[in-house]
């Protein structure tokens, strides 16, 4: 991954530069018109947020029970990315909702779940930053519990009425909309991979530096 970093960076940059053109050329949705274009950022960011949260939960479990430092590096990197892509989702969602539903926010299943997931990722980062020594394991337990929570929040809020479009919308997109959608998804996924690689690398360097300090003291 590290060797491919620069070429992938160039590709991702080019894709992000071209994405607005592609999105502009996509057909207008019949009822929502121009506002619907925010969908090309909102939905892929949401998918990547879920992916990052999943990676964080799994790697935290591996760290907690397997004691592998590498897993912890992956966990912190993916937690930060969950918070980042969550912020994109949380910013673009209300903008779209205000135009499409007439309100900024609705306590609907998907919205509640995303909000709670985002809050948990922020709590994770807070613990890492402010809880002092031993916070790595604390945060790992938090991530494990957080991932266990997700299905329950999903089921429990599903009992209420829902406003948010279902995931089944994505495979049924008309071809002219599916093209830009998957293009945006690929661009954001590349961004995720690149940031993940860079962040894990940083964390490894930090761990190596700590090791050196410890060796120096001994």
């Amino acid at each position, binding site marked *: 991954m590290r060797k491919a970093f620069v070429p992938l960076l160039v590709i991702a940059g080019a894709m992000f530069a071209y994405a607005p053109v592609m999105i502009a050329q996509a057909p207008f949705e019949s009822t929502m018109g121009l506002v619907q274009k925010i969908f090309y950022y909102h939905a892929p960011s949401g998918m990547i947020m879920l992916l990052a949260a999943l990676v964080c939960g799994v790697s935290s479990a591996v760290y907690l029970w397997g004691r592998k430092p590498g897993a912890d590096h992956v966990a912190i990197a993916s937690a930060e990315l969950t918070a980042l892509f969550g912020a994109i989702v949380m910013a673009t969602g209300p903008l779209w909702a205000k135009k499409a539903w007439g309100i900024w926010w609705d306590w609907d299943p998907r919205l509640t779940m995303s909000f*709670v997931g985002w809050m948990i990722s922020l*709590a994770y980062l807070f613990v890492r930053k402010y*809880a*002092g020594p031993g916070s790595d394991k604390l945060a790992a337990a938090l991530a494990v519990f957080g991932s266990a929570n997700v299905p329950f929040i999903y089921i*429990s809020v599903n009992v209420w009425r829902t406003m948010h479009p279902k995931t089944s919308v994505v495979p049924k997109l008309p071809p002219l909309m599916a093209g830009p959608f998957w293009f945006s998804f690929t661009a954001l996924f590349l961004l995720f991979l690149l940031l993940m690689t860079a962040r894990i690398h940083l964390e490894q360097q930090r761990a190596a530096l700590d090791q050196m300090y410890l060796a120096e003291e001994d």
Partner: protein
Amino acid sequence: MFARTALLVLRKDFAIEVKSREILYTTLLFAVSCVLVFSIAFVKEGEPLEDAAAGILWIAIEFAGTLALGRTFERERYAETLRALLLAPAPRAAVYVGKMLGILVLLAVVELLLVPIVALLFHAPLFAQPFLLVVLLAVGTIGFSAVGALFAAMLVRARSRDVMLPILLYPMTVPVMIAGVRGTSALLQSPADTPMAVMWIGMLAALDVVFITLALWAFEPVMTE
């Protein structure tokens, strides 16, 4: 061995608490003050808002529980007794179970006072379905204490733990709160929506199983230095 250790931890906490009754009294007073503050927000021209009682009850339980969790483990930290407990040649998960039972008993006492107060002050027919309400409160409180005891124990050695506990606990217990509040408001309808309440009780029971399993599993690696 396991059950004996858990009961011994519970008995130890109980013996300390009976002497001073500090945590019990402060938690009770705190819960009542919570209800008082809510009454200012949710009572309009002498009439409480519809459906407010269920939410107020559960939020008061959650807030009071957080306070009690913090105080219980602060006591253990103050005298470094948690380390001694962990050093004891006993299964660590049993120490966790003992701590959790302690919180559970304390919250049960708090609820004994809270439920009548909320029923009285918010004209809520909380005693219309006493059996279902007790079951609902029990499964909900177990879920809350299961997560709470684990997180409070983890945070004993952490910096800024007073703020950390609610930050971690509230997003984590969102499903418990949703199920508790929805189940209670189903019971408060007239006539009570029993199938709905039973559905939420079932969900809380499933949640309890998941939380307790994960906590028993995670307590050992998390508490090992």
